């Protein structure tokens, strides 16, 4: 099953189970930019609301609907377009539960496609999760594959908080087995997707498949045993699972496609050094994009965005550090 089909199934089964679930976004009656809404209008009619290219309104209207009894799933198409709604995301969606003393909740999901793919260039290629993670009151979800995306999206729709649901464009291209039933993958729980004992790679979104690939290579080529953690959710961040893994392996690398500077890797690395300073045998390494906009020309794009080889080198260097 494709990623688009899996997430569309998550919405359809949520809409069947709960009549307050609405879908709002641009072009959604036509299936959306990635086909992620295909077939919903035919089944759910007026609960599928075509919005103009008005990102600020899409978010504020979703907040207003959420405050008055609905559960909107809104689409921003590309995550860069959500920047036009940052006022509504940061000043309304994230704050209303808190600043009104818990009177009302905002059960809404904002689906955004992020990440680099085939020369989409600077305004359609970014990974902006750190911006959202920085603001209290927003949950941030970043699945690494279609099967997880379905269960995480169902959980996000059930959640009483605003959830930023980040869908990397490269994980949307493949196909995989996805169960047909309605299942939940809880928010705030990371998954150990590969057991290992020499080093932990903490990744999410598209970098999970990179980590699994690098782990296989290091195992075959050099007999290094790499544990891979898929964070799945960035807020809440499951540091318990991360700490348990790094406490065991004593070495870690955090990998994300977003910029390395002030990225999630900095937060995770810092928390690990605070809690595991005495047991760490190497500094926590970070792999991420270089501090540049994502260029158009293919060789330039490849020079900015982290590759499998970048991760391979970071893991190799960390595993031998101090030995």
């Amino acid at each position, binding site marked *: 099953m494709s990623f688009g089909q899996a997430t569309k199934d998550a919405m359809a089964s949520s809409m069947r189970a709960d009549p307050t679930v609405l879908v709002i976004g641009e072009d959604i009656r036509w299936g959306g930019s990635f086909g992620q809404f295909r077939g919903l209008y035919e089944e759910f009619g007026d609960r599928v609301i075509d919005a103009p290219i008005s990102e600020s309104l899409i978010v504020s209207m979703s907040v207003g609907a959420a405050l008055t009894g609905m559960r909107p799933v809104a689409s921003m198409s590309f995550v860069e377009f959500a920047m036009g709604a940052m006022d509504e995301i940061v000043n*309304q969606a994230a704050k209303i539960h808190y600043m009104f003393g818990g009177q009302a909740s905002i059960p809404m999901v904002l689906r955004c496609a992020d990440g680099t793919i085939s020369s989409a260039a600077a305004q359609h290629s970014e990974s902006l999760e750190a911006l959202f993670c920085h603001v209290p009151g927003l949950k941030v979800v970043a699945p690494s594959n279609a099967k997880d995306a379905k269960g995480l999206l169902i959980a996000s729709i059930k959640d009483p908080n605003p959830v930023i649901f980040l869908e990397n464009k490269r994980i949307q291209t493949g196909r995989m087995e996805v169960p047909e039933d309605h299942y939940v993958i809880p928010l705030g729980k990371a998954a150990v997707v590969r057991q290992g004992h020499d080093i932990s790679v903490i990744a999410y979104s598209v970098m999970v498949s990179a980590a699994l690939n690098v782990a296989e290579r290091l195992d075959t080529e050099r007999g290094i045993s790499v544990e891979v953690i898929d964070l799945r959710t960035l807020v809440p961040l499951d540091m318990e699972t991360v700490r348990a893994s790094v406490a065991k392996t004593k070495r870690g690398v955090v990998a994300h496609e977003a910029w390395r500077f002030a990225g999630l890797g900095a937060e995770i690395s810092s928390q690990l050094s605070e809690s595991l300073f005495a047991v760490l045998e190497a500094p926590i390494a970070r792999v991420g994009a270089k501090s540049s906009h994502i260029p158009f020309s293919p060789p330039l794009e490849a020079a900015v965005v982290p590759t499998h080889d970048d991760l391979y080198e970071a893991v190799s260097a960390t595993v031998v550090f101090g030995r």
Partner: protein
Amino acid sequence: MSESEGRTYVPLPAHESALHTPKGELLQRLFEMVRIRVFEEQVLADYRARRIPGFTHMYLGQEACAVGVISCLQPSDYITSTHRGHGHCIARGLDMRAMMAELYGRSTGTCKGRGGSMHIADFRLGMLGANGIVAGGLGLAVGAALSARQRKSGAVAVSFFGDGGMNKGSCHEAMNFAGVARLPVIFVCENNRYAQYTAADRLSAGPSLAGRAGAYGFPGTTVDGNDVLAVGEAAGSAIERARHDEGPSLLVLDTYRHEGHSVGDAEAYRTREEVETYKSSDPIGRFIDWLVSARIATESDIEILWLEAQGEVADAVHFAEASPFPEPSDALDFVFASMERGGDVA
């Protein structure tokens, strides 16, 4: 022209149709305006005496806008408000004790001390919040109207905002979609003539703010916002229109704020004479004159209303002062909601 407390007020029009409105209803509107007036004067004094922290924006002079519109609403309807929101809250029936306690930063406040002056809300009354972001409430009201339509509740949503808010992109986005979807929403622009420190007409293109509604295909009307009866009449038709699925409306209520943008504003952008001139259009003085000259109410009927409001406000201050501050250990409550709708997570 007539005299009241030494000031001569610009008379209201005859409003012959309003002469048939029950006396109780008319006096109730005056009472709501008086409650706002007395509350705001108290807040101004308490703020200047540093008993209230933070920023606060006075609604003094604009009372007819909130009362004129909100008196036409049903309990199931929604409103969104602005940074200058105390008047909308009082007119909508929020508990004055809890409001005052919120301003004082106490745990018994409407928002348990998390919001303050710019963030008072009461969701039980469909009051979806004062909002510190200019034009922040329009989209929320559009969403509430969408939700009301989806649930077939028959409710309408009113969004209050100012002349400054008319120039935000979010205002355009909200009005465009409300027009397209013919949503049951009423956009109420209180034109108090200044967008913070700048005269509204200096930075607003086009001949009239109300005229902008025409571009979205719904009616826009300019109303004397210091005439509670005129506001009520215009709001009543806009609300009926929305309730009968005939789409949104824009009302531009011409009014004037007696105080500066926020308390402490030096008001270098306007003269004392200008303020004094506009005070002769004070909505309360004008309405009292109309009630008295139409022999609907006597001076003593009206005196009772002032005394009652003063008692209520004094009680609210007493309640606020006697209430405890929130516990510092609870500062992280309400960052996230729990799985139960409306709940909270410690």
